[in-house]
């Protein structure tokens, strides 16, 4: 090819144009004037309408049961490592103060970030702030070991290879579902958004269905309870949703996403109920707004935020 104007690409075929329209409609990337254009194009020829009907049938009849072929069976999923390698390195750099875990993991997320990935088997994973996990597939099983933090997992169905999440000494066996496992506190929290899981430790098994969550502690019996789905899901959208939560609980939640600790000096203050939404990637604005509406006083130190009441 010599210098000069590049050759014009051939005009799109009727099929390609129809596919482009369906793609734009599917992505909701159309304006009112675009729809007028589409109407005109469809009316221009029965061949256009036919091609459009074929393309949209492809979209609407797309089989949801399809799963991509598993490319790698083995300890490290190369794709997952490629996505998170840089992130894990950054996490190691940040945690100079008391970092007990320096072992690299397949999947990791630094403080303040929520990461998502699709594993080799098609399972989707969300890692919350300061979380790490390892994934292993072999011929008859899939295991996700949660080393630290909180993950939400939407499991790709594979009857040949049941998936188990191992965390804090518990085995959480998936039965075709989406669920969240939170090992960041002293107790293990498991919440099911779709389907069912069986949580096992020794001989004790707790079945958990959609809409239920449980706080697990070896000392106490497990008691499933309902939970607020939108509050629970907010972190995956990069938000923290406070819905009449105590200030104490709200600060604990916010603390996950900031380096260092948040200390509340006043117990009474901690019992106050607050509502609102904070963006995880702009916690300072959210905290400032909270300070203004709740009349809080902040004392900011490296790796430490002290919260008290403002005196009139």
């Amino acid at each position, binding site marked *: 090819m010599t210098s000069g104007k590049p050759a014009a690409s051939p005009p799109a075929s009727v*099929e*390609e144009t*129809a*596919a*482009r329209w*369906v*793609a*734009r*409609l*599917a*992505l*909701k*990337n*159309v*304006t*009112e004037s675009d*729809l007028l254009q*589409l109407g005109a194009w469809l009316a221009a020829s029965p061949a256009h309408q036919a091609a459009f009907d*074929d*393309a*949209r*049938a*492809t*979209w*609407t*009849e*797309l*089989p*949801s049961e*399809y799963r*991509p*072929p598993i490319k790698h069976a083995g300890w490290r999923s190369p794709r997952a490592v490629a996505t998170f390698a840089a992130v894990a390195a950054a996490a190691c750099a940040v945690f100079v103060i008391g970092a007990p875990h320096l072992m690299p993991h397949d999947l990791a997320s630094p403080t303040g970030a929520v990461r*998502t990935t*699709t594993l080799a088997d098609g399972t*989707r994973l969300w890692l919350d702030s300061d979380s790490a996990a390892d994934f292993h597939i072999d011929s008859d099983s899939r295991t996700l070991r949660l080393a630290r933090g909180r993950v939400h997992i939407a499991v790709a169905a594979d009857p040949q290879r049941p998936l188990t999440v191992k965390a804090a000494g518990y085995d959480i066996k998936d039965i075709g579902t989406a669920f969240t496992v939170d090992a960041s506190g002293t107790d293990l929290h498991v919440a099911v958004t779709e389907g069912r899981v069986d949580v096992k430790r020794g001989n004790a098994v707790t079945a958990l269905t959609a809409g239920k969550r449980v706080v697990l502690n070896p000392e106490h019996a497990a008691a499933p309870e309902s939970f607020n789905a939108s509050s629970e899901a907010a972190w995956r959208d990069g938000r923290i949703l406070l819905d009449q939560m105590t200030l104490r609980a709200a600060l604990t939640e916010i603390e996950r996403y900031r380096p260092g600790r948040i200390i509340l000096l006043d117990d009474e203050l901690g019992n106050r109920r607050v*509502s*609102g*939404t904070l963006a995880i990637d702009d916690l300072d604005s959210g905290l*400032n*707004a909270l300070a*203004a*509406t709740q009349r809080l006083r902040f004392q900011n130190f490296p790796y430490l935020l002290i919260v008290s009441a403002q005196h009139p």
Partner: protein
Amino acid sequence: MATTVSRSPSDAKFLDEHGSSDLSGEFRRNERSLVRYITMHTGCRATAEDLVQDAFIRAGTASTPDVRNPRAFLFRIALNLLTNYKVQRRRRRALTDQIRTLLWDGVDEATPERHVSARQELSQVYRVMDDLPERTRNVLFWSRFEGLNQAQIAARLGISYQAVEKHLQKAITRLTEARQQEKS
């Protein structure tokens, strides 16, 4: 010599400064009732809060604020924004309805039964999906089944907004071609 007090945007940092200006104090005192009122009309507290924030900013940076009645001034601005919001929302809903009709009209989602003749078509579809480049396949899957929007898919894959549409177009073209071949 008389001095004039000019209102600059820095005077209007309502949420950060605590009552250093009468106007901002007056606005903040009305914040809760305004948010409550707007929430009733928008049905969503988060939208109401954004809207009220916006009203604060506009009120604070207005060249001629109504200092005699700040509350009325603020409410007027908020109500204008609310009206705009409602108009946009109506338009957005109408557009979404049209899109849904164009794609789904006549499709009975409740009975996705596959007839025997369609089984071959299905395996052909599976084969084409296996052969799609991974990124293209992800765009297809995430937009169709995971409810991700164009911006989210672009962010997740690290590609441009436009590229997402190109991938989806390619996927649909290939699959439609395969289905047509199988039918004939």
